[in-house]
C-alpha cells in the first residue's frame, strides 16, 4: 500500500468516534481473561465474591483451581515467611517473568514458559493432591471438578517444567499468578500473586506444604465425572485446542450470539460456572455436557452436549445438542438436522402468493429457498408453538417487497388450523401484526435433487440422509476453507451439487474472500477409510454479479453462468468435468482475455463448445463459437459480426456437426465441423429445410 493510502486510513481510523473507542477499550480492559460473554464478564466479580465467601471465609476445606489459590493468597497474605521473591520484568502477555528466590539462593527463570501449554505429566505428578498452609488453608488439585469449579471460565492456564522446578501459571483479570514447586523440594509449593504489570521484586505470598498426593481417581478422566479446570485444559491440549475453541464458538457464535440467540453462558444470578461433565470419551471423539441457561430462564441450568470429533490429520469438528435434541453447528448455516424437516415438508413446502401483493411469491421446495438465491443465509430455527409451526429466516438484504427494507430476522408461521395460509412476522414475535400473509397457490415438489441447484433446506435434508460425520464436516467446511492459499469464510447458499455418489459429494457454494467479494468454491467430500474427509477444494468462478446458474450438458458436464449487470450472461468462467473431476476455469490465464457472453454450450465429452458473444479488439462485439479443452480455449470462430439477442441462441451436437442457431428476425443456423472449427461454417442458412437436407446427407 502506498504511503498516501496509509495516511488516508490512519487519518480515518484516528477519527473513529471516541465513544466507540471507549466502549471497546472498556470491554478489552475488563474481559481480557474471559471466554464468556459480556454478561459473563460482568457477573464474574459477583461469582468470585460468592466463591470466596463460600469457600474461604472460614478457611475450610478448599478444592483446587488456581483461581481458588488466588483467593487463598489474599486471605493469608499476612504472617507468611518471605522465603522467596518474584520479579515480573514484562507484561503478562510475554511471560517474561523471573523468579528470584533470593534467600534460598535459587533463581528460577520463567521466560519462555508458554502460557498456553498444559503438561499433564507435570500436573499429575507434582500438582495433584492436597496442599495446606501453616494457617490451615487448604487447596486441592485434581481432574475431578466440583460444583463451583470455574470450568471453561477463568484465564490462561499453563503447566510446565523448567530446570529449577515445576510451574503452574495462571493469568486472569489482567493479573498473573504463578505456583512453583522446586525440583529439589516437591512437597513445597510457592505461590506468587498479582504479577500483571509488576516490576521489581515481590515476596511469595503464600507457601503450601503437601498433605497428600491424591488418588488414582484424581488423575483419570472418567466418564460421568465432573471436570476440573485442569481436566479441561488437559483435554483441550490433547484435542489440539479444539475444546476451548469449540466452547468459544458455542458461547459466541451459536448459543450466546447477541443477535437474538436464546442461550446464556452462565447463570444470571451470578451463581457461577457449573463444572462440565464428561459424557463420553473415545479414541477420536469426546462429548461433554456443559451447563447453560436460557436467557429467558437464567436460573435453571440445562445441559448442552458438546461433541468433538478429531480426524486422523488432527482436524476436528464439533456439534452441540441441547436437551430438546436440537443440534447446533458451527457456521452460518446452522440448520437443525432433525424431524423439523417433516414439518417443513408438511406445512411450508409449496408455492405461496402474497395476498396483498400478488407479485410477491415464494416457492418453497428442496431447490428453492424462501427468497432469491443467496439471500437466505440462515435458518435460525424451527419452533412448535402449539397452534402453529414457525421457521425463522435470517435475511441479509432486501429481496424486493417480500422482505422489509431492513432485512433481518423474519418469522414464517403456519397455523395447524389453517395450513393454506402462511404469516410472515418481522418484529421477532408472532404476536405482532404480520408483515405479509401468503396463500398457498401450488403443491409442494418434494423431490430432492441429486445434482444441480439445491436449497438450504434441501442441503439439510441431504445431510440428514447421508448422516454420519458428513453433516458436521459440511458445516465446518461451510464456515471456512482454504483455497489457493487464501482463506474463504462464511460459505452458504446458493448451493449446487456438482457430483454425488455413495461415498463422494462435491458441493459448490458461495464464500467470502478477504475483500468481502463473493467467491464460488467447489468442496469435495469423500468417504474413505476412517470416515468422511474433505477431498478437494477448488475455486469455481469469480462471482462478478448477483446471481449464478448451473446448467448441465447432455453428457453430464456442468457449466456455470453468471448474470452480469446488463442482462447478458458470462458463461466461460468455469465448468466441472465429471470425467476428470476437475473444475476448469475458462477465464484463467492462457485463455482469451476477452469475456465471452455465452448463449449456450455443449460438450462431446472432451471439448466444450460455447456459443456466444465475444468482445472484439476493436471494441465491438461478435457472435462466436469457441472451443475449450481441459479448461483452455483452443480456438474460436466468428459466426457473425453482429450480436443477436443472447437468449435466443443455442449450440448443440447434431449429426456429427456443431449446430449453432440464433434468432435475428428469423431463425438462422450454422453448422461447423468439430474437427476444424477454424475453417468456418460448413453451412450457414436461414432455411430450416436446407439444414435438414444437409444433415440427412
Amino acid at each position, binding site marked *: *500500500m502506498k*504511503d*498516501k*493510502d*496509509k*495516511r*488516508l*486510513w*490512519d*487519518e*480515518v*481510523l*484516528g*477519527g*473513529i*468516534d*471516541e*465513544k*466507540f*473507542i*471507549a*466502549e*471497546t*477499550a*472498556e*470491554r*478489552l*480492559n475488563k*474481559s*481480557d*481473561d*474471559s*471466554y*464468556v460473554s*459480556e454478561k459473563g*464478564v460482568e457477573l464474574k466479580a459477583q461469582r468470585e465474591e460468592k466463591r470466596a465467601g463460600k469457600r474461604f471465609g472460614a478457611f475450610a476445606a478448599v478444592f483446587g483451581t488456581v483461581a481458588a489459590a488466588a483467593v487463598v493468597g489474599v486471605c493469608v497474605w499476612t504472617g507468611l515467611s518471605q522465603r522467596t521473591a518474584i520479579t515480573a520484568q*514484562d*507484561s*503478562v*502477555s*510475554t511471560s517474561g517473568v523471573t523468579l528470584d528466590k533470593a534467600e534460598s539462593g535459587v533463581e528460577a527463570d520463567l521466560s519462555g514458559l508458554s502460557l498456553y501449554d498444559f503438561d499433564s505429566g507435570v500436573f499429575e505428578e507434582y500438582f495433584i493432591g492436597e496442599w495446606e498452609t501453616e494457617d490451615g488453608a487448604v487447596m486441592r488439585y485434581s481432574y475431578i471438578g466440583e460444583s463451583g469449579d470455574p470450568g471453561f471460565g477463568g484465564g*490462561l492456564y499453563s503447566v510446565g517444567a523448567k530446570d529449577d522446578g515445576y510451574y503452574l501459571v495462571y493469568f486472569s483479570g*489482567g493479573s498473573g499468578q504463578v505456583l512453583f514447586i522446586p525440583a529439589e523440594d516437591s512437597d513445597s509449593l510457592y505461590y506468587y500473586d498479582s504479577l*500483571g*504489570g509488576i516490576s521489581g521484586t515481590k515476596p511469595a505470598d503464600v507457601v503450601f506444604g503437601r498433605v497428600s498426593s491424591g488418588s488414582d481417581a484424581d488423575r483419570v478422566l472418567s466418564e460421568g465425572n465432573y471436570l476440573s479446570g485442569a481436566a479441561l485444559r488437559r483435554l483441550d491440549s490433547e484435542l489440539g485446542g479444539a475444546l476451548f*475453541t*469449540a466452547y*468459544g*464458538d458455542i458461547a459466541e*457464535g451459536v448459543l450466546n450470539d*447477541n443477535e437474538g440467540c436464546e442461550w446464556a453462558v452462565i447463570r444470571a444470578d451470578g451463581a457461577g460456572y457449573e463444572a462440565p461433565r464428561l459424557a463420553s470419551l473415545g479414541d477420536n471423539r469426546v462429548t461433554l455436557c456443559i451447563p447453560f441457561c436460557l436467557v429467558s430462564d437464567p436460573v435453571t441450568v440445562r445441559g448442552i452436549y458438546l461433541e468433538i470429533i478429531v480426524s486422523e490429520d488432527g482436524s476436528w469438528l464439533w456439534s452441540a445438542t441441547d436437551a430438546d435434541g436440537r443440534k447446533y453447528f458451527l457456521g452460518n448455516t446452522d440448520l437443525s438436522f432433525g424431524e423439523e424437516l417433516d414439518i417443513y415438508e408438511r406445512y411450508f413446502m409449496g408455492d405461496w402468493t402474497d395476498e396483498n401483493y400478488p407479485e410477491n411469491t415464494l416457492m418453497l421446495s428442496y431447490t428453492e429457498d424462501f427468497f432469491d438465491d443467496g439471500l437466505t443465509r440462515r435458518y435460525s430455527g424451527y419452533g412448535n408453538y402449539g397452534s402453529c409451526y414457525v421457521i425463522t429466516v435470517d435475511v441479509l438484504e432486501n429481496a424486493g417487497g417480500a422482505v422489509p427494507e431492513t432485512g433481518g430476522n423474519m418469522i414464517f408461521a403456519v397455523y395447524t388450523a389453517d395450513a393454506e395460509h402462511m404469516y410472515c412476522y418481522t418484529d421477532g414475535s408472532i404476536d405482532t401484526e404480520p408483515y405479509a400473509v401468503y396463500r398457498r397457490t401450488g403443491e409442494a415438489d418434494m423431490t430432492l435433487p441429486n445434482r444441480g441447484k439445491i436449497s438450504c433446506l434441501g442441503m439439510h435434508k441431504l445431510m440428514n440422509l447421508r448422516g454420519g460425520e458428513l453433516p458436521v464436516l459440511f458445516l465446518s467446511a461451510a*464456515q*471456512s476453507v482454504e483455497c489457493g492459499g487464501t*482463506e474463504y*469464510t*462464511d460459505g452458504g447458499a446458493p448451493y449446487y451439487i456438482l457430483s454425488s455418489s455413495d461415498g463422494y459429494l462435491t458441493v459448490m457454494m458461495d464464500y467470502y474472500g*478477504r*475483500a*468481502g*467479494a463473493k467467491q464460488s468454491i467447489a468442496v469435495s467430500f469423500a468417504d474413505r477409510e476412517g470416515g468422511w474427509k474433505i477431498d478437494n477444494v477448488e475455486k469455481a468462478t469469480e462471482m462478478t454479479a448477483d446471481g449464478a446458474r448451473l446448467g448441465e450438458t447432455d453428457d453430464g458436464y456442468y457449466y456455470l453462468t453468471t448474470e452480469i449487470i446488463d442482462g447478458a450472461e458470462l458463461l466461460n468462467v468455469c465448468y466441472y468435468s465429471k470425467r476428470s473431476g476437475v473444475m476448469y476455469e475458462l477465464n484463467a490465464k492462457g485463455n482469451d482475455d476477452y469475456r465471452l457472453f455465452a448463449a449456450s454450450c455443449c460438450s462431446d465429452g472432451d471439448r466444450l463448445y460455447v456459443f456466444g458473444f465475444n468482445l472484439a479488439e476493436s471494441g465491438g462485439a461478435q457472435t462466436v463459437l469457441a472451443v475449450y479443452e481441459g479448461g483452455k480455449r483452443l480456438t474460436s470462430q466468428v459466426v457473425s459480426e453482429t450480436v443477436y439477442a443472447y437468449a435466443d441462441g443455442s449450440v448443440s451436437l447434431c449429426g456429427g456437426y456443431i449446430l449453432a442457431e440464433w434468432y435475428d428476425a428469423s431463425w438462422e443456423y450454422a453448422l461447423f465441423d468439430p474437427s476444424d472449427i477454424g475453417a468456418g461454417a460448413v453451412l450457414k442458412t436461414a432455411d430450416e429445410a436446407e439444414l435438414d437436407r444437409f444433415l440427412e446427407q
Partner: protein
Amino acid sequence: MNAKYGRLCRQVAMNILSNSEDAEEIVNAAYMNVWNAIPPARPQSLCGYLCAAVRNAALNALSWSKRHSCDELYDELSEVIPAGNTVEGEYEARQITALLNEFLLEQNKNTRSIFVARYYCNMSVRQIAHSLGMSEAAVKTRLSRTRSALRAFLSERGVEV
C-alpha cells in the same frame, strides 16, 4: 492507573511498536500526559482516553516507513477502498471518517468492538478472540463480514470501490 489499564495500554503500544521497552516508555509518557490533562480535560472514559493517547503516541513515535506493524491492517482495509481509487480526490478523509462512524453506529456492540480493536487498537485476531471470549475463526468471520458491509456502505454513499 497502571494496575487498572496498564495491560491494555501496553498491548496497544506493543502491537504498534513491536518493542517492549519502547512500549513501556510510550505508556508511561501517555500516563504523564493524561495526568497533566486531568482535570480539567476529564474524559468520559479514562480507559478509552488512555487507549487513544497510547495509540497516537505509539504511531507518532514511528515514521511512516517503519509502521510495519500496521501494514497487515492497511492491507485488509485496502480491500474496502482499494489503493489508487478516486477517494483522494472526491472524498476527504474526514468525510470517510464521518461515514465510518455512521457505519459503526449501525453495527451491534460486539461487531463494533471487534472492528475498533482490530483497526484502531492494532490488536491481532488472537488477542481479540481472547479478550472478547470468541474463537479466532469467529473473529475472522466477523471482521470479514464487517469489511464487506463497510465496503458496500461506502459504495452506496459514493465512495467508489
